[in-house]
Each structure stands twice: as structure tokens, then as C-alpha cells.
């Protein structure tokens, strides 16, 4: 039960951060990517703020042996730069540049009433699901 409650609170705070930072607005994201046009560098500040807090916060949290509600921390350990990582990141960048949505802001947009998210979100789920068929378990 506590896992559910704190999962909900983390999601709320994350979404609040997306709204406060302006990143819930795809127009702002597209202007960040439009370096040679109507450039809006705000996203760099969002990343900077998040990275500083996570850098310090993870260091403190990972001094513990276990998280509060689970038996172990799950931290990715892979170090290899493979073709799938590069192909995936490249494709994601292209789709991000076309629609202005990455997955987080696409979720916060669900109740914000745009027509575009009704097309984008189900397609995102289909794409994610398709990637599993293409990607063998490792």
C-alpha cells in the first residue's frame, strides 16, 4: 500500500515539476530544439536543476543498503554502447522534433485537452509495444 501511495506522490511531484518548468508545453520544447530559429534555452535549466538534485540526492540515498519499501536498489549496470541504444536514441530524437512530446510531458498532457495528444499517446504505446517485439530480452 505504501508503495502505491509514494508512487502516486512521486508522480505528482514529477508532473508538478514538468508544469512549473514549462516542459509540459510542447511549443517550449520545440523552441529549445530550434537552435537556429526561435531558440528558447529553458530546457537546459530544467536539465541542470534536475541533474544537480539527482547527483546529490542519489549519492545520499545510495549510502543506504536498501530502499525503504523494497529489498534492493535497481540501478542499470550496462556499459556497452550498442547499435540499439544509438538507433533508439536517434529515432526518439526525430519523433521528439516532429511532435514536441517526450514520454513524460505526453502523460501530463492527457487531461489538458489538446486534440494532438489523443493521436500521439496511443501511437506512443503502440511504438513502445512494437519495440519489445523487435528487442530480444537481455
Amino acid at each position: 500500500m505504501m508503495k502505491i501511495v509514494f508512487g502516486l506522490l512521486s508522480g505528482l511531484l514529477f508532473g508538478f515539476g514538468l508544469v512549473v518548468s514549462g516542459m509540459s508545453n510542447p511549443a517550449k520544447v520545440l523552441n529549445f530544439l530550434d537552435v537556429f530559429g526561435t531558440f528558447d534555452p529553458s530546457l537546459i535549466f530544467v536539465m541542470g536543476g534536475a541533474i544537480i538534485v539527482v547527483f546529490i540526492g542519489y549519492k545520499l540515498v545510495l549510502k543506504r543498503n536498501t530502499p525503504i519499501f523494497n529489498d534492493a536498489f535497481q540501478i542499470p549496470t550496462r556499459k556497452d554502447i550498442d547499435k540499439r541504444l544509438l538507433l533508439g536514441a536517434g529515432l526518439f530524437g526525430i519523433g521528439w522534433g516532429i511532435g514536441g512530446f517526450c514520454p513524460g510531458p505526453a502523460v501530463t498532457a492527457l487531461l489538458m485537452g489538446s486534440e494532438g495528444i489523443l493521436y500521439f499517446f496511443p501511437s506512443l504505446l503502440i511504438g513502445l509495444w512494437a519495440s519489445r517485439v523487435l528487442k530480444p530480452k537481455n
Partner: protein
Amino acid sequence: MTEFTPFSSLFGGALIGLAAVLLMLFHGRIAGISGIISGILPPWVNKDELGWRIAFVIGLVLAPVFYQTLTGQSIKHVVSNDLGIMISAGLIVGLGVGLGSGCTSGHGVCGIPRLSMRSIIATITFMSFGIMTVYIIRHVIGG
């Protein structure tokens, strides 16, 4: 044009970071949105993880509603409503974050501070491709 907002963006970014730190403290999990959504889609590899993931997504969905209720401010939100553009963007983003094992949150917010080389390379790659794509759409095709 959108207004450059260094202070609210830095503060909002710090809130995003705090949410990621809390998820690590309480659940011991990386706050990667694509991974969390992917874990909700069947077939479920680990059903124990389903509850908090669904709760986290519900929190994300409700956050703008809470923001508007608390502050009384409307949220700027400009989205393309073009059917073909948004369907293709969704499919490509979904496929990309699935193959690339993460998005702006998992690789950018959580991976860069861990100094993960995979996440640093992924972030540089998706930002570069995003910039190139917007350049082509706005200044080559649209220019």
C-alpha cells in the same frame, strides 16, 4: 516564440530531480517515464512492480489539475493537432525510447548524474537528432 524562463525552469527541474530522488529512496527505482509506462503494458514481466507504476502515472496525469487548482493559473499548452504528424511522432518516439532503453527522464535526468556513459551518449544523440529534425522541418521544408 516562447518566453525564456530560467528561474521557473531551474526550480521545476529541481522538483523533477527531487521526485526522482524520492522514487530511489522509497522504491529503489530509476524515474524513467518510458520504462515505467512500458512496464504497465502487457505481457507483465513482474507484476509486483505494476501497482506503483500505475500510481506514478496517475500522479503525472493529475499533476496539471492540482497545479491549476492550487495556483489558479492556466497552463500554456500548444500542440499540433495534425493527425498524421502526431501519429507518426508517437510511433517513432515509442519505438525509439523502447529500443534505446530510455528517454529524457531515464537517460537525461537519472542517467547523466550517475555518469552512465550509455545515458550520456543517448542524451547527446536524441538532442542532436531532435535539433536536426526541427531544423529540417522549420528551416529547410518550412523555410
